[in-house]
């Protein structure tokens, strides 16, 4: 019984990081109705920022987090102008394809630079032992940092002027433009924030598990599941969805072979999408 509880707690800790990754995706969807299919490779880039900072420059691993946020933001703004700006207001197919093109380019460049062999950045962090079960220190720190970053996003969206502008654009772009909000700049800013969130979640994931150039794809799929669970365009729901997914993983681990867990996840995903296209939590609210 204690074993299951420990597994569930660990699942929730990791789930908070999934939630962070999904927040980036859902924020972009909520503001500009674009599904960022370059999400996975951006998570991968966040992982490699950790690798560069910790291994190549020899700095403490957690110094990678502000680096990823800053780099991710400007990278996101650049991506917006290259691949997304011209797709706003055109059929969804177009933005899906253009962001997927970015996905291919990033994976191709990543493979050329770092090959597809696994990387591991050892992070020293004392764990917490409870009733014979040790909770890894990195998992606890990652979950705490994810919560802090989610809190900062909340402050940005609800306590600042630019946050108000983002929410206004998400609500009704024409009305926002008429009230004098430079909506194009706001869109590029929001895209930058979304990409920075994806990148930083990658950095946190890399402190937990080994990674390759292709690992971003797995977390992209998990982000889809989480966004659908939490309701598209709803950052708070994304965090809850992430924790819910972590909970499912933690609960399922003691009972079935690890290779069956993705089937549960994707089954849940498709069912959820069909039954509650507006998210599990919005269905509960009604």
């Amino acid at each position, binding site marked *: 019984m204690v074993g299951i509880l420990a597994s569930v707690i660990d699942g929730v800790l990791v789930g908070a990081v999934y939630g962070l990754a999904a927040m980036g995706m859902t924020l972009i*969807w909520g503001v500009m*109705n674009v*599904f960022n299919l370059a999400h996975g490779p951006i998570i991968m880039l966040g992982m490699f920022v950790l690798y560069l900072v910790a291994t190549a420059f020899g700095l403490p691993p957690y110094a990678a987090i502000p680096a990823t946020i800053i780099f991710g933001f400007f990278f996101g703004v650049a991506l917006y102008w*290259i*691949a997304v700006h*011209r*797709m706003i207001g*055109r*059929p*969804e*197919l*177009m933005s*899906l*394809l*253009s962001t*997927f*093109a*970015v*996905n*291919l*380019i*990033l*994976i*191709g*460049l990543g*493979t*050329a630079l770092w090959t597809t062999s696994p990387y591991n950045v050892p992070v020293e962090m004392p764990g917490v032992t409870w009733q014979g079960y040790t909770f890894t220190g990195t998992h606890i720190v990652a979950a705490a940092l994810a919560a802090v970053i989610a809190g900062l996003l909340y402050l940005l969206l609800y306590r600042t002027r630019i946050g108000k502008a983002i929410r206004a654009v998400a609500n009704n772009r024409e009305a926002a433009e008429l009230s004098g909000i430079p909506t194009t700049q706001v869109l590029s800013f929001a895209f930058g924030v979304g990409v920075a969130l994806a990148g930083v979640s990658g950095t946190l994931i890399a402190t937990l598990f080994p990674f390759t150039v292709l690992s971003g*794809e797995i977390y992209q*799929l998990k982000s*889809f*599941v989480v966004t*659908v669970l939490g309701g598209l365009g709803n950052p708070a729901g994304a965090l809850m969805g992430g924790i819910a997914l972590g909970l499912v993983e933690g609960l399922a681990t003691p009972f079935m*072979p690890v*290779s*069956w867990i*993705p*089937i549960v996840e*994707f*089954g849940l*995903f*498709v069912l959820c*999408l*069909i039954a509650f*296209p507006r998210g599990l939590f919005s269905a509960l609210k009604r």
Partner: protein
Amino acid sequence: MWRRAFPWVIASAALLYALFPYVTNDVQLRESLLLAAVYIILASNLNLVIGYAGYVNFGNIVFFGLGGYICLYLVNDLQWPVILAALAGAAGVSALALVFGLGILRLRGAFFALATIGVNAAIAQLVTNFEPWGGATGIYLAIDAYEPLGGPMQALWTIYLLIVGLMAASLLASYAIRNSKFGLGLIAIGENENAAAVLGVPTPLYKALIYSASAFLPAMAGGLYFFKSGIIEPGGAFSLRTSIEAIVMVMLGGSGTVIGPALGAFLYEESRGYLLTAEAFSHFQLVIAGTLLLMIVTFVPGGLLGFVHRWWPRTRRWLE
């Protein structure tokens, strides 16, 4: 349908395509053309959903992979003849797609696209864990599986002819659907689904039907293709990347046209062969595919054929 010139052009082009490696007796050329034909089948059936009905199916490869698995299982474990097995696989996958389609096609736009990624991932994982189909290692055919077709050498030629036949069938079906009431309904759905529904197009039924129809020929091609390879494993059968490449091909040639996707598939496949063999490009193949896709989507969303149609409007009449 046969009164117009276009189907005859397709049929004779396919005949030439089939005979060319025979006449030159060039095995390497045959392999390259076979791969291109497989991609033409994938792209032109995907076009039915993307180009006509306007729904993005990111998981289109699931038809191909599942068809391959069913066929190889029937051939290997139950000793069915390969053509019958491929047909059974195609029928099974098509029926499955119809059931799935009625469920997930209630979703629109990006939600549908996401669901197709989920379906592909779920089925890939399911097959990876399905022991009767060899789990993660897949199914290997014994060499005597080729005996009924006159040994491995002869079997390769037979499979080539069959796949080219499927390619011709894909293009003809694409043409027939485009020039039917059904196709008109689909194109209306692609333009504006609400308006189509108001005008009396039975949208849920049409969408599910086209989703299911677009599964049949790719599933059969999957059966024949993996029979030819003699091996099938989950990574190769359900590769999301191949799925996306098929979308690139459709966009490259011009979505919503009949021969556009085929043209795109042929060009993409042949130029990829060149990129892979050229030393300088082999690492950057994905980068090139990505850049190409980005350029098409940004600057020429109509693809090759859309470009031709825009500059020479007369070609619209005979180049569909």
